[in-house]
Each structure stands twice: as structure tokens, then as C-alpha cells.
């Protein structure tokens, strides 16, 4: 069970030692971080995952670590409001690509080259935001008990078949930003014409809308709907709990990236640096991977069957204007 896995991992963390130095860090940084005494992180990473990481960090360094969790846009709202008011509380931000880039453009971050960066492939390291620590991959998850084996979808394109009319659940593409980006990026794996046809055929199948990717996964795990467009990691997470779910194997899947970066007005800079080092380190990345995350650290894969064969294609970043246009377009396509 997921919660037992998290508990097990936190036990391992506790047994692994107290105040040994973090990978590659200078003693001077750690000493300075301890003097600051605490670090506060705002982010959209799931609480269970972050709780385990924070516990490990506290154990390793003795530094108090606090986490404020919200959706990516709410994290940005709060952090930027405090920033503009001159009262920033966050030392670091953990959030999705689009939000991080918007904050970056407004001067919210400062560059920090963690010594752990060398354990990430060069192509995942952003010059301003650092390593893309994880990919969240969107695909098709289905309930094996709600469909006959012959009815299991074999590809993303299968969702356009009339036999699946009324059986698909997905986030509202006119409202959920990741889904908007996903649809807008489908041309990268299907080609432009095929992706447009797919969207129209999918719309004709009247998918049921929910507010985001997780409720989509929950509706399929509970058997209310047989097929969902959602993060493929939920096939592992709900599968661990006993749900009869699986995901459609595709050679390429589109997903979003996540980063952790230091705030430019961080009240505790050294503690923030120390936390980033720990977060990107082997121990933390392995913990995340065991909880189903597709992390980018070399040689670390989630226990999802077929994970090593998934080719990750990053979603397009959309500007504010692009989002508005795409939302209008999808309203036309899906609600006509």
C-alpha cells in the first residue's frame, strides 16, 4: 500500500544516520545552514512524498523544514503576493514548468548550482531553473474489471473509437491547464493532422469531465468509468492499493516537467541551498521513484511495469495568450 511504502521509506531514512554530510556539500554550507536553523518550501508536490523527504532532511541535517502545499497556480499566487509586498516567506519553490518559468520571468528566483546536478542528464538541466527533477507523464489508464479483455484500449488513438462513447473520463480541457497543454502538444507524437482528427473524434465520444487528473484516475480506479486520461503513475499508485487498473503502453508519452529552485529573496539562503542539495540527491530521488514518480536522476526508475520503455516528450509551454486561444478552441470542439 502506498502509505505503508511511505512509512517504510521514512523508517529507512531514520535508520540511515543522523548528521552525515550531504552529498558533495561543503561543511561550510551545512554549518551556515544550521545557523539559519530552518527552511520553508512552497510547492505542488504531493504531501506524502514531501513529508518523507522533509523527514529525511531533518534527520540528516538537524535543520527544521516546513512545507506549504497548494496547486501550482496557488503556489505562484501566494509566493508572488508575498514577494511584491516585500515579505517573502518561502526559501524554495517546487512546482511545474509553466508556473516556474512565469515566476522566473518576474525575477522570483536566484541561480543555484547544486553539486548534485552532475547526476542528472545534461539535457534535463535548465540554465535558470536547474535540473528537471521529475516528469509527470499523461496517458490512458483503464479498469480491467470494467472492460472485457478484448475491449482494453491498445493505444491513445483507440479512444476515438465509437465503442468508447460515454466511457471516458478526463479533466475539463477548457479549465485544467495541464490538460490544455497536453492536447495542444499531441501533434508532437501524432502529427498535426492526426492530432486534430483525434481531438474531434474524442469530443464526439462525449468524455465525462472532472476537475483535474487525479479525480480522473479515481473515477477509473473505483470502476465508475472504465477509461481515464490521467497521469500514468496512478496506474501504479492505485494498483498498489488493489485497484484493477493498468495503463496503455505507448513508445512516447507527453508530460510536464517539475523543478525545485531557490527564491531570490529567500530568508534562509544557505538552508535553502542545503535543502535543494538533499532534494536532488540520490536518497530523496529513490524515495520519490518508489512512490511512483518518474524522476530524471540517472539510473532511477519507478516500479511501474514498462517504465523503462516510455519515451518522454515534454509538453509545449503556452503563454497566457496561447492558453486563452486554446481554451476557446477546445470549448468549440468539445462543447459544440
Amino acid at each position, binding site marked *: 500500500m502506498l502509505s505503508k511504502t511511505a512509512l517504510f521509506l521514512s523508517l529507512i531514512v531514520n535508520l540511515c544516520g543522523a548528521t552525515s554530510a550531504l552529498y558533495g556539500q561543503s561543511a561550510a554550507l551545512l554549518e551556515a545552514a544550521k545557523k539559519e536553523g530552518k527552511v520553508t518550501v512552497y510547492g505542488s508536490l504531493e504531501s506524502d512524498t514531501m513529508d518523507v523527504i522533509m523527514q529525511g532532511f531533518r534527520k540528516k541535517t538537524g535543520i527544521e523544514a*516546513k512545507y506549504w502545499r497548494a496547486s501550482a497556480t496557488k503556489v505562484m499566487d501566494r509566493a508572488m503576493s508575498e514577494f511584491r509586498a516585500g515579505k517573502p516567506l518561502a526559501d524554495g519553490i517546487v512546482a511545474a514548468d509553466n508556473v516556474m518559468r512565469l515566476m522566473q520571468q518576474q525575477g522570483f528566483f536566484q541561480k543555484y548550482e547544486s553539486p548534485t546536478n552532475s547526476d542528472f542528464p545534461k539535457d534535463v538541466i535548465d540554465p535558470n531553473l536547474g535540473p528537471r527533477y521529475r516528469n509527470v507523464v499523461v496517458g490512458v489508464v483503464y479498469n480491467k474489471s470494467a472492460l472485457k479483455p478484448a475491449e482494453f484500449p491498445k493505444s491513445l488513438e483507440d479512444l476515438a473509437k465509437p465503442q468508447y462513447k460515454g466511457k471516458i473520463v478526463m479533466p*475539463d480541457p477548457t*479549465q485544467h491547464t495541464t490538460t490544455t497543454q497536453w492536447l495542444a502538444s499531441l501533434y508532437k507524437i501524432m502529427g498535426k493532422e492526426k492530432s486534430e482528427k483525434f481531438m474531434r473524434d474524442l469530443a464526439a465520444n462525449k468524455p465525462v469531465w472532472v476537475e483535474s487528473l487525479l479525480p480522473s484516475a479515481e473515477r477509473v480506479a473505483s470502476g465508475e468509468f472504465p477509461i481515464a486520461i490521467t497521469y500514468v503513475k496512478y496506474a501504479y499508485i492505485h494498483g498498489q492499493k488493489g485497484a484493477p487498473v493498468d495503463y496503455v503502453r505507448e513508445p512516447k508519452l507527453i508530460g510536464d516537467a517539475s523543478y525545485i529552485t531557490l527564491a531570490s529573496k529567500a530568508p534562509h539562503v544557505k538552508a535553502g541551498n542545503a535543502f535543494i542539495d538533499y532534494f536532488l540527491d540520490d536518497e530523496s530521488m529513490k524515495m520519490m521513484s518508489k512512490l511512483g514518480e518518474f524522476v530524471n536522476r540517472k539510473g532511477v526508475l519507478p516500479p511501474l511495469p514498462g517504465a523503462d520503455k516510455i519515451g518522454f516528450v515534454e509538453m509545449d509551454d503556452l503563454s497566457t495568450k496561447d492558453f486563452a486561444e486554446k481554451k476557446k478552441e477546445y470549448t468549440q470542439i468539445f462543447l459544440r
Partner: protein
Amino acid sequence: MSTPETTLTVQPPLTSVWRRSRIGAFLSQPVSWVFLVVGSIIAFLSLYPTYFLFYGSLTDAPLGVPGKFTLDNYVKAYSDSEAYSLMLNSFIFGIGSSGLSVVFALALAWITIRTDAPFRRLFELTAIIPNILPPILVSISWVMLLNPSNGLINGLFVKLFGLEKGPFNIYSMAGLIYVEALILTPLAFLIVAAALKSMDPSLEESAKTLGSGEFSVMRRITFPLIRPAILAAGTLNFVRAVESFDTPAIIALPARIEVFTTKIWREALGSFPTNHNLAAAYGVGILAVALVFVYLYRRFTSRVESFSTVTGKGFRPHQIDLGLWRYAASGAAFFLLILLVVLPILVLSLVAILPYYHVPTWQTWQNLTISHFQYVWATPRVHKAFMNSLFLALVGATACMILASLASYITVRTKIAGRGIIEGLVFIPWAFPGTAMALGLLWAYVDFPIPVYATIWIILIAYVTRFLPYGLRAVTSTIIQVHKELEEASIVCGAGFMATFRRVLIPMMRPGVMAGWIILVTIFMREFSATLFLYSPGAEPLGPLLYFLYLDGMRGRVAAIGLVISLISVILIAIAQRYSRWDTK
């Protein structure tokens, strides 16, 4: 010899003498000072964050960034024809759910307070439980019960009656109205029950003496006398329904029904990046609607003395002997409570013991787990959240009710010019969409000279600001029924304003005060839309904790915590209800 100087004394104009004597007369009354203090507090709480929201609706940049004055937000919000069709949807939704909630509440309140139906004390206690549950959990429970694919009730009907498919579809306007009505019923129940408890039965007894039957008395005496309470409950619930987002997000979206708040979410609060300026412009529209209803409410209840039934004579609320019909009354109340309480709690209990939610099969019972309750028991973060929420609930509700009682007295009982403004001010923050108001509070207090931001005190301020109308409504519908003769008798006997207020009015208003306190405690225990923006990691209450566990897909933990919150709240309510009875004296 010089002429002695003559000192000319300029007589002040008569108008300024008149004005000074008027001001002096005003300030010589203790109640005037209460008006000034209470009015100032309410004006500050209400106008300070509202100013930031209005400002935000009239600029093109987020707060903290220099922006230009613009009406573009209003043009964008209100030039869209879709906004009006969605407002109509919201009206239908609001009227349907508030009307149905008042019907449920009236039936339940009448049975529990005015009849001799068995188990009525139990009904009175459990009718409030749905208010304890986060609305999102109630919505989720009913989706699990009534969804057309594998809803539990639909499945039962299919099995029992051999139907092809279940008869109910929660994903419809009817489903939306029904679930929202269930969520709103406890508030209406508390207000109507408080009014029924406060009534002097002499009018009803006179009618019976003159030959009217029980139902005729109910129809022609009782219900007209509690009309202010019914209207108060309906008004409050209408605005709450129109402003609601949780239920439409869970139920309306799969049905592809849109209401005004889902549009606000889609285009402003949930868009990327969030457009708070546009959300503020939308919020002003909802504010206008809310203020219209406040005005209408005050018009409906303007004939105060005709509703006065609590007099100086001692009394006990009249109980109707239903004879054998009392079992039918209990049955009806039980049925309502099954819908309001039993079914959602059963579903939550099921979710709390399953590793993941699914329709139970024989195999399910082999995979039950108590891990979610273990999480609640063993996690310091959860314990801290409970302590923070208890503090906010007890202190916040008490502070709110003190302010509400004083404000209600001023608006209902005095003739002070400007007293109506207090009621309007109270409703302003509440009329904005919850998240938009929360942002106004964030903007207002992030740079406040007193360092309340990022502490539990900012959350307390937010709760009092946003939920004062609930307290005000609950106590106002009771104070209307208290006749002036009691106050006059106290003053004639030499008691000052505070003594009269404390020793005569507060005891008379006790049912309404306790009703308001109970409403506020249950809301504060699980509030999250305002808290989300304002809490800091060290001061996390239960609302954000529940919300993020829900976001992370941990429904089992959410259900387990929801059940524990319900248990604690029931204990608090039972204690409070003990103090709200007349017959405890």
C-alpha cells in the same frame, strides 16, 4: 477719559449650538458608544479587504505592481452574454436548493421542537451534523450513491426491481439542487429551530381555545410568526448556494452544467495565470446580488413588533399532541436524517476502511484496513491541525457571536441613524466568492503594520470577517421576537444598557446566540477556501489539511479525519444545545 473697552461676545450661530447639543446627546447614551465601537470594528473588518478587491477590479495589474485604472475587467466580465445565461442557471440552482433546504429544515424543526414525536432530541442533535462535514465530502458521498454507472443506491434498485439501469442520475440540475439543499439544511434548521424555541405559545393557545385545529394553528399562527426566520434562512442559503463552488465542481462539471461560480473559476481563478482582477470584477456582481437580498430581507422583516412573541411572562414552547401521527412524524424525520446524515456518514465510513474506494464485493471485506485511522492517530501534523482548528472554532465563534449580538441589537432595536449600514457592511465580504475574498484578505494583511500575517491570528480575523453574517442572521431572527417591554422594564428599574443587555436580552436571545455559535463552530472546524491563502506551515488548521489530502487522492484519510471532526463537533454541539434550552433554567 477713554471709553472702557467693550468686549463683544459673538454668539455662536443657532445651528452649531443645535448640532453640539445633538452630538452631546448622542454621545451621552452608552448605546451610542457601542454603536461607534462595533460599527468601527465591522467597518474595518469589512472594508479593508474589500477595498483591495475593488481596487483590484479597477486595475490591470496584480496588487503590489503599479497598474493603470481600467474598466476592462468589468467589460470582459459583463459583456459576455454567457455570463447572463449562467447567472440564470445560478439563480435556478440557488432558488431550488435554498427552497428545498428550507422545506427540509421547517419539517425537521417543527417535528423536533413543536411536537411530541419520539426521539426528537436525537433529531435535533443529528440535524446539524451535515454542517460539520466538509461540503466536498457530502458531494462525493452522494456521487458514490447516485452516479448512473455504479452508484450504490442505483445498484440496489437494479437488483431489487430488476431494472436495466438505475433510476437516479446525480449528474443533473436536479441532482445538483438536491445535494446542495442537503448541505444547506442544517443552517436553515438552526435558524428556524431557534425561532420556534423562542415563541411564546399564548397566541397558539388562544387560537386553539377559539376552536382551531393543530394544523390550522400551525398554518395560520406558527408559520407566519416565524416568517422572518424562514426568510432569513432562505436568503442566507440562496446567497450561499449562488456563491458555492464545491458542489458544482464535483457534480455540475461531469453533467456539463455550468453555473456562475464555475465560470468564474474557469475564466479567472482557475485560469493560467490566475486573473484576480477579473475574479474581483465578477465578485462585485455577486456582491450586488447579495446586497439586494439583504435589502429585501430588511423590507420583509421591517414590521418588528408584529413578530414579537417573547414577552416578560414565563413560558414553555407549545408542544402539539399528534396522537398516533407522532410515529409518522418520527418516521418522516428519520427519513430526512437518513438522507442528511446516515447515508453520507455510512459512505464516509466505508471509504475510511477501504484501501481505495470501489463498490464493495465479497472480496472487499477481506481487504479492509484501519491504516487511515492509524494515520490520524499517529501523525503529529494531524494533531496540531486539530488543536489549531479547535482554537479557531471556539475563540472565533465566541468573538463572532459577541460582535453579532451587539450588531444585531443596534440594527433591530435602536433608531440610530446609519444602523442599517452595519448590516450591509457585514454582508460585503461574505458576498464575494470565497477564494476571491481570501485573496483580498491576503493582500490586505500581508503588509499590515501589526504582524498578524503568517500567524493563526490572520486566520481568526479572516473567519470573523467572512462568517459574521451567519451569526448576525441567527441572532437577529431571535431578537426580533423579543418584545421591548422586557428592556423597558429593566431600564425603569434602573439598569444601564450593559446590564440590560447582559441580564435581560442575552438570556432571551440565547437560542439564537447558541444557534449562531454552533453554526460558526462547525464551519470554522473545517473551513478551507479562505484559510488556504492565509495559513502558514506552523499554523495549519484542518481545512487545508483535508483539502490537500483530497488533492493527493487520499480519500481514506480525508474520510477518517472527517469522521473524527464530526465526533468532536457533535460533542461541542451537544454541550452548546444544552445551554440553548429554555427548560434548563
